[in-house]
C-alpha cells in the first residue's frame, strides 16, 4: 500500500466526510444569511445532539437513526424559544453584529458548561451498534458503513433544504431576506415568520448533525462545541457566507483537504486548517465563492 492508495482512501473518506461537513455547517449559514447573526453556539448544539443520541441509545437502546428524526422537532422548538429570548432585542441594540456575536458566545458558554455538569468532561463515543455495524473495504482500508449512512443522510438533508429554499414560500422569503432585507420587506415578505422559521431550522439542522458527529470525529465531549463552530464557519466561508447551498462545495473542499492533511502531516492538520480559515477571511471575507463584504 503506497502513498497512492492512501491518497485514494483520503479522497474517498474526504468526500464522505465533506458531505457531512456541508450538512453540519448548513444551519450556521442559513441563520447567518437570514438573521445576519453568527450563531456561535452552533457547534454546541451539534454537541448536544450527539449527547441526546448517546443517552437515548445507552438508556433506552434507541437506534440513533430514529433519534436523528426525533431531534428535528426538539431542536426546532429550542430554536423558537431561543429566538424569542435573544433575537428581537439584539436586532434593536446599538451594534447588532457584534452584540449578537457576544450574546451567542454567552449562550455557547452556557450550553457547554450545562453539558459539562450533566455529562462530565471525559470524551464518549457512539458505538457502531447504535446505527449500522460493519465496514467496507476501500483501497485496502476499512471504511465504516456508518460513515456512508451519514453521508447519505447528509445528501437527503441537503436535498430537502434545496427544496425548502427553491420551492416553498418560507424558503423563498428566506432567500429574499438573504439578498436584501429592505426590498423583501417592501415587497410584503413576512419577515418575522420567515426569520423565525429559518432560525429554528438552523438549530434543528445543528442538533441533527450531532448524531453522526461521534462517528466522523471519533468522540464527543462538552467543550468540543467551540471547535465544531469554528470548523463549521471554515466550511461556510470556503463556500459563500449567506448562501447555504455553497456550503456543499465548502464541505467537500474542506473534507478532502483535511483528510489529505491528516494523512500526510497529521500533527499540523488542525493548525493549517485554522491558518487557512484566517487567510480566507482576510482575502475574501464573504467566502471564496461569495461577493465582496469588505469595509474600509
Amino acid at each position: 500500500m503506497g502513498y497512492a492508495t492512501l491518497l485514494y482512501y483520503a479522497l474517498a473518506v474526504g468526500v464522505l466526510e465533506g458531505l457531512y461537513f456541508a450538512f453540519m455547517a448548513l444551519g450556521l449559514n442559513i441563520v447567518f444569511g437570514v438573521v445576519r447573526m453568527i450563531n456561535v453556539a452552533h457547534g454546541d448544539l451539534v454537541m448536544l445532539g450527539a449527547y441526546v443520541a448517546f443517552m437515548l441509545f445507552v438508556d433506552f437502546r434507541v437506534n440513533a437513526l430514529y433519534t436523528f428524526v426525533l431531534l428535528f422537532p426538539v431542536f426546532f422548538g429550542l430554536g423558537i424559544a431561543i429566538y424569542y429570548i435573544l433575537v428581537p432585542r439584539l436586532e434593536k441594540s446599538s451594534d447588532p453584529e457584534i452584540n449578537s456575536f457576544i450574546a451567542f458566545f454567552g449562550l455557547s458558554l452556557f450550553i457547554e458548561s450545562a453539558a459539562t455538569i450533566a455529562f462530565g468532561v471525559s470524551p464518549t463515543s457512539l458505538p457502531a451498534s447504535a446505527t449500522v455495524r460493519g465496514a467496507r473495504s476501500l483501497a485496502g482500508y476499512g471504511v465504516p458503513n456508518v460513515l456512508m449512512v451519514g453521508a447519505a443522510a447528509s445528501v437527503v438533508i441537503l436535498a430537502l433544504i434545496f427544496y425548502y429554499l427553491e420551492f416553498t414560500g418560507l424558503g423563498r422569503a428566506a432567500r429574499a431576506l438573504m439578498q436584501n432585507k429592505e426590498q423583501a420587506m417592501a415587497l410584503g415578505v413576512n419577515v418575522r415568520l420567515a426569520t423565525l422559521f429559518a432560525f429554528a431550522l438552523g438549530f434543528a439542522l445543528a442538533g441533527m448533525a450531532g448524531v453522526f458527529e461521534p462517528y466522523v470525529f471519533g468522540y464527543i465531549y462538552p467543550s468540543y462545541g467551540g471547535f465544531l463552530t469554528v470548523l463549521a464557519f471554515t466550511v461556510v466561508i470556503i463556500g459563500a457566507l449567506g448562501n447555504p447551498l455553497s456550503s456543499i462545495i465548502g464541505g467537500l473542499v474542506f473534507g478532502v483537504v483535511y483528510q489529505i492533511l491528516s494523512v500526510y502531516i497529521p500533527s499540523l492538520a488542525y493548525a493549517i486548517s485554522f491558518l487557512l480559515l484566517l487567510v480566507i477571511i482576510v482575502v475574501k471575507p464573504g467566502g471564496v465563492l461569495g461577493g465582496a463584504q469588505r469595509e474600509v
Partner: protein
Amino acid sequence: MAHSARSDEKAAPPRLRPPVGLGRAQLRNMGIYLALMLALFLAGPVAYPNQFFFFYLMDFLILTLGLNFIYGFTGYLPFGYTVFWGLGAYGIYIGLQLGLHGALAFIFAIAISTALAAVLLPLFRLRSHYFAIATLAALMAVYYLVESSALERWTNGDKGASLAGRIPYDPMLTYYITLAILLISLVLTFYVKYSRFGLALRAIRGSVLSAEMDGINITITRGLAWLLSALIASLAGAMYGWYVMFYYPDIFNVTYSVYVITYLIFGGAGTVLGPIVGTLILSSLYQFLDVYYTSYVNLTFGVILILLMLFMSKGLMGVLYRYLRRLPP
C-alpha cells in the same frame, strides 16, 4: 448653525478646540486611581494573605485595560485577544529553548507576541464580526501550533512548558513588576483617553469613513492602538508565565478571552473606571467560583454575557451615566 452665524456676523466665531489634554480634574482623578490601586495591591495581600488572588486580579486588570484600547476606544472586538497574553507566556519558554537567557527570553516573548499583532494588521480591513472571528481563528491556529507535536522541540507540545530551574523564581519581584505595569497601563489609559490620539480613536469608533474625511490617518492610528493593546497583553502574559512557572497550551483557551471581554463590557468599554470596576468585581467572582464551584464558572459567565448584551450593553458605567446624567470618568 448657519442661521445663527448669519444673525451676528460681527462676533468672532467661537474657537472650537477638541477636548484634549489632561486638565487638573483628570490629573486629580488619575492620582486617586493610582493611589487606590497602590493601596489595594500593597495592603491587600497583608489583609488577605493570598498573593495569587491579587496577582491574578492585577494581571487581568492589565488585560482589560489593554483590550479597552482597541475595543473600548477604537471599537474593534478581537475575540482571540488573549493570544497575545498566551504568547507572552509561551514566548519565554520558546526563547529559552532557542538558547536565550534570562531577560533576553522575556524580550523575545514580548517581541514575538507584538510581532504577531503586526502580522494580523490586515485583519482591520474586515467588518466587525469578521474581525472578531478572524482573531478567534488566529487564537486557535496558535493554540494548535503550540500543541502540535511537530514543533515540540520549541514548545514541548501538549506536555506543557516549565520554566522551573531555568529562570529565577521570584514571586515577590514578579508581583511588584506586575503592579508597576498595571500603574503604567492606567496612566496610558488616562493619557490616551484625553489626547488627540484618543480622540482620533473615538472618531474611528464612530465611523471609519468620517474619521478619514477629518484627515485622520486610519491605518497608523488604528494600528498603533492595536500594537499598544497587544503589547500590554503580552507584558501581562510574560508576567503570568513567570509567576506560575508552568503552563499548558490551554493558556490559549478562548475562555480567557471571553472573561476579559466580559469584564470590560460589564464595567463599561471606553471608560477608565469601567474596566477597573468590571475586573475587580467579576475577576473576584471568577476566582471565588473557580475555587468553590468550578463547574459553574462558565455557566455564570454565559448568563452574565447574555444578560449584558440584552439589557446592559454599555455596562455599569452606562447605568451610572443614566443615573447621574453626566459622563462617567
